[in-house]
């Protein structure tokens, strides 16, 4: 399981720049990032090099932030790669709340982050089907 940081962001010019600046000044590296948005507000979700420090820095700067446990799976970078992993979750009766992918260099396998309701069941189902999951040690070093 990997700790993801979620931050509440108003849909206003310059807000993301400010948040990433706060993290940058604290020496925190962004490893993966996704934004979910509505017309009024958004949620910035990210994997960072030091989640605990990130949370405390964000709170000190007045942001509302929380951590969520997610799964990061290695997916073969070829057509149908993601489909087979999603198929495993589907057969196990697990629905995906959201997912997004990591930025990687070419020729490497893709890394996909999943947020599911029942994280324990999802992990065992994926492992049983030979899907490689990354642990926090792997991810925070990327």
């Amino acid at each position, binding site marked *: 399981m990997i700790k993801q940081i979620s931050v509440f962001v108003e849909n206003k010019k310059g807000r993301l720049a400010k948040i990433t600046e706060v993290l940058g000044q604290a020496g925190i590296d962004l490893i993966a990032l996704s934004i979910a948005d*509505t017309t009024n507000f958004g*949620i910035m979700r990210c994997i960072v090099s030091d989640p605990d420090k990130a949370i405390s820095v964000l709170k000190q700067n007045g*942001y509302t932030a929380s951590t969520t446990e997610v799964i990061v799976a290695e997916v073969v970078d070829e057509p149908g790669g993601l489909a087979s992993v999603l198929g495993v979750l589907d057969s196990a009766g697990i629905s995906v709340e959201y997912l997004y992918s990591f930025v990687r260099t070419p020729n490497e396998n893709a890394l996909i982050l999943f947020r599911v309701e029942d994280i324990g069941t999802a992990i065992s189902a994926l492992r049983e089907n030979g899907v490689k999951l990354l642990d926090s040690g792997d991810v925070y070093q990327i």
Partner: protein
Amino acid sequence: MYWNKEIECMDREQLGLIQLEKLKATAKKVYENVPFYKKAFDDKGIRPEDIRRLDDLKHLPFTVKNDLRDNYPFGLFAAKQEDIVRVHASSGTTGKPTVVGYTKRDIKNWADLMARTYVFAGGNKNSVIQVAYGYGLFTGGLGAHYGAEALGAMTVPVSGGNTKRQIMLMQDFGTTIIACTPSYALFMAETMEDMGIDPKSLKLEAGVFGAEPWTEAMRTEIEHRLGILAIDIYGLSEIMGPGVATDCEYKQGLHISEDFFLPEIIDPDTLEPLPYGEKGELVITTIDKDGIPLIRYRTRDITSLHEQTCGCGRTMVRMDKVLGRSDDMLIIRGVNVFPSQIESVLVEMADVSPHYQIVVDRASNVDSLEVQVEVSAALFSDEIKRLEDLRNKIEAEIQSVLGIGVTVTLVEPKTIERSMGKAKRVIDNRK
């Protein structure tokens, strides 16, 4: 033109005698029938028979809005429930409305007073009166409606909203008097312009506007754009509803129907009565009501009274246009809104009091209400749909408490301006 010349132009000395008799009867009625007043009179050591002159009014106890809420729903009614034929209600600070009741005679008198109001605006039985105040628990719609019928006018009960249809009916029915909030009148003028309709091509002659504070500048604009006479009416549901006071074509203040309502101006801090001409809080005693007569009701409205006979010939005392309230109540689209009502909804949702701000604006002459809520850790969720659900739930909750539409915006913590450590709760951009 008058509806009841004898009363409206009565010699003030003679009027005083009538008022004294009615005041004595009212004091006796509430003392004998309303435990709240019996206690209030006893606490002050005064009995109804101690009232000998009108000036003795100042010895009687005050009534405030809270007293209606504390005695919710019917505790201040002086008439038996079997004699009450209608109730109206307005919003209160805790979500519980303040309730007023009317007997058959009260309803008839109210209609008669509203008919008087239409005559101020030039109305008669040939008038076509379109009532665009909201119908329902709010006194505006039904009050204006029965007054128009009592006048003998053709009454068009459209209620509020659906502006294009309102305009179509005005054209087709030949509406001569419109009754609505002043901001809605301006919105109608704008809509007419958008529709390519020249307001001056309509038969509209006058408007009876009230239920929200408005300025002389707004009156000039309405009169200019719609080409009509704009009359200001004043009322509040606790006292009766619309028709308590109305201004005439001389626009020198609103004539209070003193045969029914005894006005005073007091200093809101010392509670001492102030002489004519001085600014203070308006206090009204209803002297001819059966359902819920109120003694020295503090309206919270700041104004002053003038007793000189008006150019129109009426001797009834005039009050200045009400522009300020002595508490934090907002009037939005004619509905009373207290910030504390919104706060109580938010506290219920979050278990703690979140920082919030109420932003009132007027776009295209319609009031808008926005509530900005800071997303605290207690409210935050990592999932968009949960946050959206929260937002919708707050909107629905506030809407059901206030009875008017609201937009809720979720904002980042610390974005709401604070002064002296306290968040500024209300921003009213309508001024």
